């Protein structure tokens, strides 16, 4: 176990190193990315620019700059932004994380519940119109660009029908911290949650259904039926439980990506200051420290989540436990 853990750790470190070097090199290879003149300000004099270059260490060779940046990011944690002078990058990220976490978690709850319902019902009514309708809905969900859906949702709830009783409760776009007002938090996030969940509901419902259909052809499902169990129990206790293994591995990947900033389109459309949007802004502003921090953050999450999924696997699938 310890060895596996160490191996995981090593892999994580390797992946992080690879990504950080890549980001770093790409940044400095980007023409016009040299942040000196932007930091110095418009119309700054050459002397000021030289000072800034020195102050920020841009006159050092790249490996030294890289090492300094990594030290500031991971050890002293006082890496500052190039675009917003004086802004410390790590606290920014830490402040953005709860937003993304709220968005992803709420969305995940919705998509997990709804997709399990949809997938199971569709599998139970395999081949009927119920099945076909549910799967068609799922397909449409997969096919809607999330940013477009978000815009349309905003158009409806914020403008067109904001004055009607249906949507008058919808607050302005933006995030309300849970600690500040749990109800406000919920109201602010419910529409983003649903928007985010639509795609995943489609994906998961379809995956789950096809898994359940495959599983229902397995011998053990036949055994369960031969025992005299009700079809519901067979489907849920034996079928669903077994299918959850694929479901969870998929979920781990997707959830990790969302936490890591994958929900940026949703964050952008709904004005949520989360990690994704932060990263996007950092990218638009070519703000290397923030890019580096957020990419590292997201990579850490993806890798961590994968490790977590492995652990959950152990609970869900005894075969994995025995290293089979």
């Amino acid at each position, binding site marked *: 176990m310890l060895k596996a853990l160490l191996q995981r750790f090593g892999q994580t470190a390797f992946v992080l190193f690879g990504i950080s070097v890549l980001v770093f090199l790409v940044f400095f290879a980007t023409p016009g990315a040299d942040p000196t003149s932007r930091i110095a300000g418009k119309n700054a004099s050459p002397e000021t620019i030289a000072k800034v270059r020195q102050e920020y260490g841009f006159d050092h060779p790249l490996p030294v700059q890289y090492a300094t940046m990594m030290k500031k990011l991971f050890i002293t944690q006082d890496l500052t932004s190039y675009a917003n002078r004086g802004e410390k990058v790590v606290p920014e990220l830490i402040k953005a994380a709860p937003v993304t976490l709220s968005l992803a978690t709420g969305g995940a709850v919705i998509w997990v519940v709804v997709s399990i319902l949809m997938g199971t019902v569709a599998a139970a009514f395999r081949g009927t119109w119920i099945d076909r309708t549910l799967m068609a809905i799922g397909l449409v969900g997969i096919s809607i660009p999330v940013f477009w859906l978000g815009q349309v949702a905003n158009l409806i709830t914020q403008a067109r029908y904001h004055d009607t009783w249906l949507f008058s409760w919808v607050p302005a776009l933006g995030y309300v911290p849970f600690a500040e007002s749990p109800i406000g938090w919920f109201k602010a996030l419910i529409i983003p949650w649903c928007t985010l969940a639509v795609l995943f509901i489609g994906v998961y419902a379809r995956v789950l259904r096809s898994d359940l259909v495959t599983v229902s052809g397995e011998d*053990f499902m036949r055994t369960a039926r*031969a*025992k*005299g169990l009700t079809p519901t129990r067979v489907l849920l206790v034996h079928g669903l*439980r*077994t299918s959850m293994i694929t479901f969870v591995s998929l979920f781990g990947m997707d959830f990790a990506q969302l936490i890591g900033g994958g929900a940026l389109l949703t964050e952008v459309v709904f004005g949520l200051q989360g990690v994704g949007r932060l990263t996007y802004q950092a990218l638009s502003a070519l703000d290397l420290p923030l890019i580096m921090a957020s990419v590292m953050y997201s990579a850490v999450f993806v890798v961590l989540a994968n490790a977590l999924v492995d652990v959950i696997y152990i609970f869900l699938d005894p075969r994995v436990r025995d290293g089979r």
Partner: protein
Amino acid sequence: MAGDAPLLDVRDLCVSFRSGGRDVPIIENVSFTVCEREILGIVGESGSGKSVTAMAIMRLIDDPGVSLRGSVRFRGQELTTLPQKAFRHIRGREIAMIFQDPMTAFTPVYTIGWQIDEAIRVHERVSKSEARARTVRLLGDMGVPDPERTANRYPHQLSGGLRQRAMIAMALSCNPALLIADEPTTALDVTVQAQILDLLRNLRTDYGSAVMLITHDMGVVAETCDHVMVLYSGRVAERGPASAVFEQPAHPYTAALLDSIPPLTGPRPVRLPSIAGAPPAPLERPSGCAFAPRCHYAHDACVTLPPLVRFAEQDVACVLPTEGKALPTRLLHGAEA
């Protein structure tokens, strides 16, 4: 040897599937009976419809395109028209089933014990601990070493033989009157197979259950069964007491099948007697005798479907006995003279 009133009475069972816009008849007019405490062997080549027959009795075929005709009576009760809900009380309690591959027949994510407990608790209102006690006892009866610990293990942690024993224990958990075993030993090694067959043979005395043993191994039938039914391409070729069938097969297919098995003792034939060709696919099945294209004795009369006729102790679907041209008595080849 067996009770008089049949426990299970199958009459003219036909099963067909819809495929590619056509009805594909898989089994046609299969009839047989199983009496209390009897062991009936059903043999036939792969694809001859053995499993479909068993699944049809258990009503476990959930293919939407399936159509089922004929009658299945269990203790006089018609099963084919029984509502699903009522049928569930029969499944597992009155008629239990075990499957060919013990590797895949258990749900991988629950312990063996949990799954046997579940089988008990669906049909009887007993507490968890009572169920577990019974599970452990059953496992012990099946010759599972250290049954308490084994009950807490997952399917993949057990060897094939143990798994099959657990499977049988699960099937026996509610003391069923009939156990349908679909090739229970095919996936096992010979030495383990011998153990399992031994177990099955003793069921009727220990548990009073009748057994429908599906296999493609004539040896297994000879060693285990009281009666035997030979299926060929979805139809009954021959059925009767095992001793009679093995002594003097009345159907050329049965005879050829027996001949093509290499003997384990005695002189070795230079070449094995073999049957040319392969069984027809359901859709290409001749309207007459299905075996005719491969049969030594095929002649004009074989173009019409031969009815089951009584010959000696068995029933046989062949024209030869009616024509008085019965097959020669089989040399007891293989047995040491």
